[in-house]
């Protein structure tokens, strides 16, 4: 596009701004920004960035549009319910501005795909809704040395910051400098549990777009090394100066390889993770394959009849702390009890002890359900 057509076209009102001009607009047209989570924060960020003429916009989201999204996710319409957010966002944004390139990733960002997905972009906007994503996005941005525009909301309050962006003498602060450890399971509720005023992510997401425009164009002062907090009910803002941790105890993986191996789910769940429960049919498969150790935490009852080669430990629940060193080098471990309830607590204890080096499961429904399953299987054959 020539300078003249830019000047008279879609972006005229911002090009006219003092300090902005065609130079800033050209930077936007060549910029690549990726937004992770096309929800309450991601929608307004995407809308304003597309409208402002950011050349390439990446969108990562695995969800479909649902009715309860619509009070705050204004890229979508009632007719979009049930359709993938990435698809709906793409068509809405292209209708708004066909000059931008939209790249979509209809997948959950994980430590397995994040480095590849984020690599081509100049900066990253975090609009996700859970701590696991927030830590893994932060760490990817540190490893890839990309600025991260953080926004998050809870009920009537929102937080905003620009991480991993060095200013003058200050090296870039990252998310872990402020929040080195995630809160415990259930301590912080998400929007689904706690509710959120629809306009609040609209405000914070729009401010994330504003930070992106400042970073790309170089005008103004980005919110680097500051945490900005906004309260929707009082309209009060509070700003805190952040400093990089001098002696970081942080767990940021040191290499891309270590990043892919870091267990973010485990790191972010000090309580029981529902992904740590397996059902009786999966348990039966594992036992048949023999690639698993079984820990039986009942205090009584007969030994379960597994083949001899299968590692089988009888460690009563009360003795788990003292006797867990009996457990050998198996990578996958299933804890069983009578009904599948105490075994969940045992998984928490053992996961704290072994960390991500072992995958520890609880048998859902316990030995009772497993025996029923075996009886049914015998009847079928």
């Amino acid at each position, binding site marked *: 596009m020539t300078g003249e057509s830019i000047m008279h076209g879609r972006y005229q009102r911002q090009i006219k701004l003092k300090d902005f001009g065609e130079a800033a607009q050209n930077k936007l047209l060549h910029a690549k920004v990726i937004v992770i989570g096309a929800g309450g924060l991601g929608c307004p960020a995407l809308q304003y960035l597309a409208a402002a003429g950011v050349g390439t916009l990446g969108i990562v989201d695995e969800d479909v549009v649902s009715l309860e999204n619509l009070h705050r996710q204004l890229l979508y319409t009632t007719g979009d319910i049930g359709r993938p957010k990435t698809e709906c966002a793409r068509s809405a944004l292209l209708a708004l501005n066909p000059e931008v390139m939209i790249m979509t990733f209809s997948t959950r960002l994980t430590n397995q795909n994040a480095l590849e997905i984020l690599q081509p972009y100049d900066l990253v906007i975090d609009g*996700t809704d859970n701590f696991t994503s927030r830590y893994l996005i932060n760490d990817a941005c540190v490893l890839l040395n990309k600025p991260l525009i953080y926004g*998050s909301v809870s009920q009537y309050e929102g937080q905003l910051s620009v991480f991993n962006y060095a200013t003058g003498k200050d090296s870039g602060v990252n998310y872990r400098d402020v929040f080195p450890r*995630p*809160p415990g399971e259930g301590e912080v509720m998400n*929007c689904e549990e706690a509710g959120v005023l629809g306009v609040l992510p609209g405000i914070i997401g729009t401010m994330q777009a504003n930070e992106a425009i400042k970073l790309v164009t170089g005008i103004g002062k980005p919110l680097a090394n500051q945490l900005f*907090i906004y309260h929707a009910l009082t309209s009060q803002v509070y700003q805190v100066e952040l400093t990089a941790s001098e002696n970081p105890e942080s767990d940021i993986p040191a290499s891309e390889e270590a990043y892919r191996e870091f267990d973010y789910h485990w790191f972010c769940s000090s309580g029981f993770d529902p992904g740590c429960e397996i059902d009786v049919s999966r348990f039966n498969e594992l036992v048949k394959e023999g690639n698993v150790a079984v820990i039986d935490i009942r205090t009584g009852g007969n030994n379960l009849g597994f083949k001899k080669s299968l590692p089988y430990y009888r460690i009563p629940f009360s003795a788990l702390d003292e006797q867990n060193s009996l457990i050998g080098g198996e990578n996958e471990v299933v804890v069983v009890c009578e009904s599948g309830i105490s075994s969940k607590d045992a998984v928490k204890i053992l996961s704290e002890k072994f960390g991500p080096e072992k995958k520890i499961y609880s048998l859902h429904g316990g030995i009772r359900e497993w025996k029923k399953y075996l009886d049914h299987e015998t009847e079928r054959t």
Partner: protein
Amino acid sequence: MSINVLIFGHLADITGKDSLQLRDFHDTDQLIDHLNNLFPSMKKARYACAVDQKIIRTNTQLREDSTVALLPPFSGG
């Protein structure tokens, strides 16, 4: 010596107030011990702490009229 404490996010649900005026605390460790005794659920909570709008990581001296902010992370988006 009077200290202002600002309490953000769900921590305000624990304390029942979004700000407290307290007296005679000389450093943040004393203050946080006091809050933990007053509101036992605070002990388990994870949050960042700022004194006079600067994030702190270690015990920090308080002055007359210091403002201490307790800032939990939010996950919502």
